[in-house]
């Protein structure tokens, strides 16, 4: 137990997810089917992807408020490019990812070199990206392209008739890759180190500038990818879409057991966080009579519970250390 104090938030998230699922199952046995699970993954694919990026940012002790706007920008950018040029969607995707990655990297550069709080810089980024989306198009732009139809039809039939769609699968892939990146690479370790204390980390040889830029670049890249996924999901680009998604992502990360003060967390936890939020939504849809605002209320309560849990954990480890020292 003492060994795994760090794992405790993750375990708590998992338990909450299982309990929530059990409650849903008790009322609506239909919810325990690969079909529901498949939908859960598909519906939350874009949120899951962007939340993985957010996990890195938060572990490093930062925050990225721009991602919701970047997703909207991505959708509009793709839709307009496909409408006005004859470029293949894959070319447009590459262009877009390059753009959003550079956007993230430059926010990271501003944060590091001008020593500005991430909150302010990414808030500016949020307005900037949203504004760019408006400049491209104020109205929703539908996407019609045979390649899009093809991607939307792609799925893997799970046992039990559930469909793991392309975008659902992509999200799982991103989570796996993100997990490896966080826990098994030097870059990942450096992210944790910065979250533990940037000054100390730099004294220990962590390249602060490079790592900070890479963290926000990664978040930008994944926000771009989430934008692509969202455009496949909705077949449209709209500059007013995904308002507030950055806050959903932050909520998922925190419910997933990542410390909002940085230095500790798990990418896998974020996936569970996203699934918990999706599950609440699914339950409300199954129920039919509840207002969809209950999703927000429940998420708010969960979030609060987790912050209290984290505070308690920090407190008990501090205490144990005094007792041990």
């Amino acid at each position, binding site marked *: 137990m003492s060994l795994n*104090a*760090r794992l405790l938030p993750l375990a708590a998230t998992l338990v909450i997810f299982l309990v929530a699922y059990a409650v849903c199952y008790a009322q609506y046995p239909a919810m325990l089917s690969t079909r529901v699970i498949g939908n859960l993954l598909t519906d939350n694919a874009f949120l899951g992807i962007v939340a993985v990026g957010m996990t890195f940012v938060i572990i490093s002790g930062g925050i990225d408020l721009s991602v919701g706007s970047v997703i909207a920008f991505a959708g509009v950018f793709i839709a307009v490019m496909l409408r006005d040029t004859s470029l293949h969607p894959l070319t447009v995707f590459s262009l877009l990812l390059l753009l959003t990655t550079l956007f993230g990297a430059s926010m990271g550069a501003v944060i590091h070199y001008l020593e500005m709080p991430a909150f302010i810089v990414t808030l500016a980024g949020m307005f900037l990206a949203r504004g760019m989306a408006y400049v491209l198009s104020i109205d929703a732009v539908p996407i019609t392209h045979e390649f899009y139809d093809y991607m939307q039809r792609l799925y893997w039939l799970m046992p039990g008739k559930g469909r793991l769609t392309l975008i659902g699968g992509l999200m799982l892939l991103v989570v796996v890759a993100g997990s490896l990146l966080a826990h098994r690479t030097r870059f*990942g*370790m450096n992210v944790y180190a910065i979250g533990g204390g940037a000054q100390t980390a730099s*004294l*220990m*040889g962590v390249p602060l500038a490079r790592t900070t830029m890479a963290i926000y670049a990664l978040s930008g890249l994944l926000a771009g990818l989430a934008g692509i996924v969202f455009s496949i999901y909705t077949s449209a680009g709209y500059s007013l879409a995904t308002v507030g998604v950055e806050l959903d992502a932050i909520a998922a990360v925190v419910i997933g057991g990542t410390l909002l003060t940085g230095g500790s967390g798990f990418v896998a936890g974020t996936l569970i966080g996203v699934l918990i939020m999706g599950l609440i939504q699914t339950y409300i849809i199954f129920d039919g009579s509840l207002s969809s605002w209950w999703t927000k209320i429940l998420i708010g309560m969960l979030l609060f519970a987790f912050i209290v849990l984290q505070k308690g954990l920090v407190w008990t480890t501090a205490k144990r*250390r005094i007792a041990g020292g």
Partner: protein
Amino acid sequence: MPQSDNQPLLRARGLRKVFPGTIALDGVDFWLEAGEVHALLGENGAGKSTLIKCLTGAYRRDGGDILLNGDMIDPKGTIDAQAYGIGTVYQEVNLLPNLTVAENLCLGHQPTRFGMISTRAMNRRAREVLSQFGLDIDVARSLASYSVAVQQVIAIARAVTLSGKVLILDEPTASLDSHEVDLVFGVVRSLRERGLGIIFISHFLDQIFEITDRVTVLRNGRLVGTEATRDIDRVRLVNLMLGRELEQEVRSHGKTHAAAGEPRLTFTGFGRKGSIEPFDLSIRPGEVVGIAGLLGSGRTETAEVLFGVAAHDSGEARRGDGTALRLTSPREAIAAGFGFCPEDRKTDGVIADLTVRENIALALQARIGWMRRIPAREQRAMANDYIRKLDIRTPDAEKPVGLLSGGNQQKVMLARWLVTNPSFLILDEPTRGIDVGAHAEIIRLIEDLCAQGMSLLVISSELDELVAYSHRVIVVRDRHHVAELAGGDITTDNMVRAIAAPEREAIN
């Protein structure tokens, strides 16, 4: 002691560093041999930390050369210095509490396969490294779960594995108790055997004599002498440091009149679950009560409960006249005329960005309320007064405290509480990190204060010091107040015996 063959391992020639208002280093010529432990001594603000920061490139030097094995080098920073073989453990422990021990040891140098870190191999390597330092601990646990001493050894281990020629230790023992110091010294000795050159900074003269081969003394940024430790005695060493005679290193105390009369404050059954067991304490005007005990035994917790930092959950406090006191927050404690100078100035103490004057005025301002601002002129007079009284080394009162040397920050914090003129002052390790000269000053100050009728509670690991000024000493062990010594019973031996009691019972 090893002989110098031809080239010293590390050499600084004419090193110079200027800060606005201060010449921190003035033409320092310093050399370090392989296989020696070399003490760097000097008063607070003498330039010790600055010297090593220039040697490692953490500060840019304004002049002078650095030679390693006779070759000029120009390290640009900690990492660069490491590449040259110079490892440093700075004045405060600098590892990451949120990472595991192994991750801390291997950060930036993790063993990888196909770009992926192998946690197994990393933990194995960490265990191997630490076993050379006589440490057999679970390296997969987070660093924060180990004591400061173990963290200190881990920091040394990291510095040594990454560099391996020169090891610089800036006050590595400042927050360790004597067992822990032994642990660190064992490690230092074995490294000396391996042929490393070690620079050791400390204010504890006993430790200097115990472990070092040569001493270099700095005074006001100048090197005033380098000598073999065994050829020098305490008095001469102190004279070199201060540039004058110190009347007596620890003054024989003037506490002849055991404070008599009615208690000023009485605490009964005072305690807090999980931090300190309920205790009784009464304190008279003009009395100094010492608290002795090991680190983590409940000394600091006692102070925190009394001052309301951690509110008590049992017992009550009364004034001498019998009126009850509410003491559940520092605010209430301050209003009741209490003062508390905590142990860890980095986290609880001075505000680094504020100037010396502002820091000193802070507590007084809080006491009289924020609405009635203290006029700037008065603040300045006050600050200058204490800069003089405590001999705080700063060009003027307007320097941000963060830029003062470690020991001088400690003095600023003390001054802050003294200006509020409390009737009951709690001092937690008031002499830690303070040089011998100022040390004697502070002890004299304690005696003066109680002669003026102030009641003091002083926590200290230096038992001699407690003997010198305490009228009574309370010994704390395992979160209990286990013994109280008074008058002639206050001796170092008695205290050690009370602190160590459990082992004796086990033997009996």
